[in-house]
């Protein structure tokens, strides 16, 4: 039984923590929050590229460090904890992973090395309105060489160099890759609940696009891609949950009411204990997802869904009760509580909301039982 990260992986996590506490302070997050014309922290992005993290899980053959998914998981936890305002998840968890599992050799060679160097930013353009994308409602279409249609919202859509676009393709759907340098793409920035990450709506009009993976397998590939991303998102979410718990705990020890630390009242104590329990449950499920991801285990679909739901629930609880523990101060702009409340919600819905993933858990339990 060795259900834990290796010492090397823990060392990498420690390094990442040290690096991000210096380079990705909350002032970096707030700079993006308060500046509509600053989609992300370019300086931070550059130094993350220098660290080689963008290529951490990319094979050396494609210019990466050739580390595994487990290393990516520990980095993800620290990125989540730091709220780093960069297009990291769109680029690393989504674009790079998509190419790794479904990209053609030429696509990998063209994109992955540049991506590892920080010259490429990815995004996924799947949503066209409320609810999960479905074949019946999908309006964007791919004619074999170009894609047309409007996608909203697209996280990092305004700064991405490449977009993965879900489009109708004949009677089925396909996932296609669009070079955002093409002309005739209309990018409209969007105000969102989490301005520390940038969003846009993208309008494609016969924009050249190349197929990723099998023609007609768009929704299937997206689902497999989201299973992988769900595990990595889960680590960002437990990182954020742990940050909220640390904040609330530290505050409860030093904030006095009725001449006692508020942490000595069971009302606060039991609240924080509940968050701890939720975090441990989320962490254990995330580890399981990490294991399944690292060895492409058949358990991945179920493990990913368990990891995602556990992480969404824990982060929501921690981020809202961190505000509550801080009282009036927690409701102010200058205290960081709301930054986590915002990010928790974005991460909880970007790949599809918990209700959707709960249904996935049950369907996957049924498949396992059927098998």
């Amino acid at each position, binding site marked *: 039984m060795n259900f834990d990260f290796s010492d090397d992986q823990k060392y990498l996590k420690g390094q990442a923590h040290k690096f991000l506490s210096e380079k990705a302070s909350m002032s970096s997050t707030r700079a993006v929050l308060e500046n509509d014309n600053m989609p992300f922290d370019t300086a931070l992005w550059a130094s993350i590229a220098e660290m080689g993290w963008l290529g951490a899980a990319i094979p050396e053959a494609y210019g990466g460090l050739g580390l595994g998914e487990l290393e990516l998981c520990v980095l993800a936890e620290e990125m989540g904890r730091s709220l780093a305002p960069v297009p990291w998840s769109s680029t690393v968890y989504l674009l790079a992973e998509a190419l790794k599992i479904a990209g053609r050799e030429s696509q990998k060679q063209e994109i992955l090395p540049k991506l590892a160097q920080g010259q490429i930013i990815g995004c996924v353009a799947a949503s066209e309105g409320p609810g999960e994308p479905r074949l019946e409602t999908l309006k964007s279409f791919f004619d074999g060489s170009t894609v047309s249609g409007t996608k909203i919202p697209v996280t990092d859509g305004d700064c991405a160099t490449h977009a993965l676009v879900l489009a109708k393709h004949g009677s089925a759907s396909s996932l296609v890759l669009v070079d955002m340098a093409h002309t005739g793409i209309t990018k409209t920035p969007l105000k969102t*609940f989490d301005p520390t990450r940038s969003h846009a709506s993208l309008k494609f009009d016969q924009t050249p696009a190349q197929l990723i993976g099998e023609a007609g397998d768009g929704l299937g590939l997206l689902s497999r891609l989201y299973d992988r991303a769900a595990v990595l998102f889960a680590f960002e979410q437990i990182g954020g949950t742990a940050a909220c718990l640390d904040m609330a705990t530290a505050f409860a020890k030093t904030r006095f009411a009725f001449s006692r630390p508020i942490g000595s009242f069971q*009302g606060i104590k039991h609240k924080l204990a509940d968050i701890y329990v939720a975090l441990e449950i989320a962490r254990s499920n995330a580890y399981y997802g990490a294991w399944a991801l690292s060895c492409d285990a058949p358990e991945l679909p179920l493990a990913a869904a368990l990891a995602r739901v556990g992480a969404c629930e824990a982060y929501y609880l921690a981020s809202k009760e961190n505000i509550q523990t801080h009282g009036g101060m927690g409701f102010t702009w200058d205290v960081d509580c709301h930054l986590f409340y915002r990010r928790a919600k974005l991460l909880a819905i970007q790949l599809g*909301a918990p209700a959707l993933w709960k249904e996935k858990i049950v369907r996957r339990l049924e498949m396992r039982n059927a098998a």
Partner: protein
Amino acid sequence: MDFNDTPQEADYRAKAHAFLSAHVRPKGSEKETLQKRLSEAVYLAAAKAYQKSKAENGFAGITWPKDQGGQGLSPIYSVIFGQEESKFDAPAGPFTIGLGMCVPTVIAFASSTQKERFVGPALRGDEIWCQLFSEPSAGSDVAGLKTRAVRDGDDWVINGQKVWTSGAHYSDWGIVLVRTNPDKAKHKGLSMFFVDMKSQGIEVRPIHQMSGGSNFNEVYFTDVRVSNDQLLGGEGNGWSVALVTLMNERLAVGGSPGPDYKEIFDWAHHVPGLDGSTLAEDPSFRQKLADWAVRAEGYKLAKFRTMTALSKGETPGPESSIGKIITANQLQDMTNTAIESMDHFGIITEEGHAPRDGVFQQSFMWAAGLRIAGGTDEILKNIIAERILGLPGDVRVDKDVAFKDLPTGH
């Protein structure tokens, strides 16, 4: 049992409705309200004019004694007026706290000359009052406040900081709770003053909320001089005076903020559900909706029980404190469900794209603050446990200790 007004109540309701129809417009959509449309200055002028017309038509100070220019009616009539007023886009906000909490305190504790000077102008809308109790280190534990007033001849000199004061920047007067004797136990060394908000040494700064807006202020006191005559209730009696002020906070029989379960249900008919049909047809959403309906209707009906007590001339108990626990948490839960049911699209707040002009996301923010403002969930549960169920208070380490000797953690 019936839900009908008594003949007198019905008559009063009709009169109130007639007055309102003549002076203000019926409520329109949220974004078209006067407050949203007008600049603050213009809105304030409208509010003052509206308050003046209330006074001229006998709808100001409904429960106040006649000799103070009030109507001398029982609380049920102010509830009825409030119910009718809530159907209109009436600019009443700027006067709620002053007339609801501050001036009643003045009426209870000020000298007759002072009452003559202040009650009329407040009632006629000429002057606005604010309330200055909370401090950065004294929220749930208001009596732990540090703002000092030191006697200097016939004056007192106030230094310190207050927070979460609504309307401080446009108020003419305020009542401020300060510490006049740090050598006494915390509740015993407090005194209440009323102050001219335009006094030298008072600086008002807006608080930037996590929601982005600024509905409250920080108020800094630097060597602010007030005359000893402005002491309300006498030196060292500040806590009992404050309790009178806060008692008036309770009669909150108004509606709940943000979208209610009906609005979310209507909207759910236009959102896709998990299985391709609409959210409104999703059985798990319907189970949640039923829970919300039970709590929302139950709370509404609980208020009818409060009104019944008022109507019978009884004083409703602290039962009303269940209200905010339910509404704030339910608002957070409902709006969270609404946002998540849109999946990725739920993150959008941009006008024109976000459903209902982003009211779900705004309320999801507000709800977090609502669980704190005016008594946290935890404090309200203590109140229920101690005042209603009669459970013993928590162990107090701050009794019978000079305030200056109390541990503060700093």
